[in-house]
């Protein structure tokens, strides 16, 4: 072997090679950890939106939609957000794996930890009220978002199947009220067939109605539920 000690030092000298500063490596590691944290937070936001969308469903109304419970569950899954969540878990995994010590951990453990942190964050965000913000912001700002998400607005906008929703605009008497659906159409609601309800109807209330449609503008309500549930804004 040639004198590699001498040769190497000569090349280092001639090419003026110097060790890269320590902060370069530390910075790179921190960038990876930062993106791991960001991906986990975004995964958490995806989870809170999934919880929000699922929480808005009434799981007993599948029969009105001519679906089995299984079909209803399948159609209710917010696939866009599930996919987004998986994507952020994958990004978080790759970022952490490329940190200095990331390779020491098994893939399953890393993915599991990333999922658990995201789920924990999602639950905290949900409890903190961030849930509806994301969904509503996307609904307003992102084109085609509403076409990609099958949410309670779609379910309760099925007047032919006896499901209607909207805002009470006028309470006429104890037999009925006027409702403006979320598409802006006015409906006369007939309450004669309404069973016992503890929900108090007043102007401005947002409600979900189960009943029958007469083919015109009158909807015969059998059950009234509040539009917002479980602490939703």
């Amino acid at each position, binding site marked *: *072997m*040639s*004198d*590699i*000690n*001498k*040769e*190497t*030092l000569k*090349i*280092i*000298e001639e090419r003026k*090679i*110097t*060790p*890269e*500063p*320590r902060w*370069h*490596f530390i910075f790179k590691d921190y960038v990876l950890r930062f993106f791991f944290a960001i991906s986990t937070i975004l995964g958490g936001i995806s989870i809170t939106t999934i919880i929000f969308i699922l929480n808005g469903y009434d799981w007993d109304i599948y029969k009105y939609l001519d679906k089995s419970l299984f079909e209803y569950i399948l159609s209710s899954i917010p696939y866009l957000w599930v996919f987004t969540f998986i994507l952020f878990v994958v990004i978080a995994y790759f970022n952490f794996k490329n940190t*200095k*010590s990331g*390779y*020491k*951990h*098994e893939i399953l453990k890393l993915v599991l930890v990333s999922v658990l942190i995201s789920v924990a964050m999602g639950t905290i965000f949900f409890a903190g009220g961030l849930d509806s913000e994301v969904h509503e912001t996307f609904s307003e700002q992102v084109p085609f978002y509403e076409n990609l998400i099958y949410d309670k607005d779609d379910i309760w906008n099925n007047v032919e199947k006896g499901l209607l929703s909207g805002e009470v605009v006028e309470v006429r008497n104890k037999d009925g009220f006027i409702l403006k659906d979320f598409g802006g159409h006015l409906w006369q609601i007939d309450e004669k067939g309404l069973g016992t309800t503890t929900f108090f109807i007043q102007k401005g209330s947002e409600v979900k109605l189960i009943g029958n449609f007469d083919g015109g503008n009158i909807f015969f309500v059998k059950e009234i539920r509040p539009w917002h549930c479980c602490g939703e804004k």
Partner: protein
Amino acid sequence: MYLNGDYLNKTDEELVVLTLKDKENYQYLIQRYKNKLMRYIVRLSGIKTEDAEGILQEVFIRVYQKLNDFDTSLKFSSWIYRITHNEIIDHLRKSKTRPQVIDSESNLIALDLLKADLDIIKDIDKKYFAENIEKIINTLDEKYRNVIILKYKEDKDYNEISDILKKPPGTIATLLKRAKEQLKKEILKNSSLLQNYV
């Protein structure tokens, strides 16, 4: 080149610190690792010594550039082997060659240990084993070859192999188990072919 005897007794980590202060001290690290790494390059790639020297020099330059990245929670030897391993893989990919078989006494290190680990092949002739093991190792998938060479030729433990290949220790254990299974299968296949031929 003059080498200070006191420096020869220093640990790798101390020499890293000294090299960062004065690049002339780098020669002690080179001196300590050049033969080991040269053997590793030849074993893993099977290339000629002249070409291996080129890779080795690139390794030492790369190590010098990355000296500040050395993580003291690792053994320096694992870290320098990792850089060497990556350099060999890069070289093989660029030249699009598959590792070649090499005939050298140094390749027979730890073969007894390997033979003992592959316990079903007690009956296989020692001479046959020694003569053919290199060829058979060379037919293994790259991931299996890597762990077999590090474990049985470079005498590295699981944690060191994990640090060199940047894979979790559990994965290394699995790879090694599968590598030995594949190796056994290949040895038995080859020995039966040989017997049929004879």
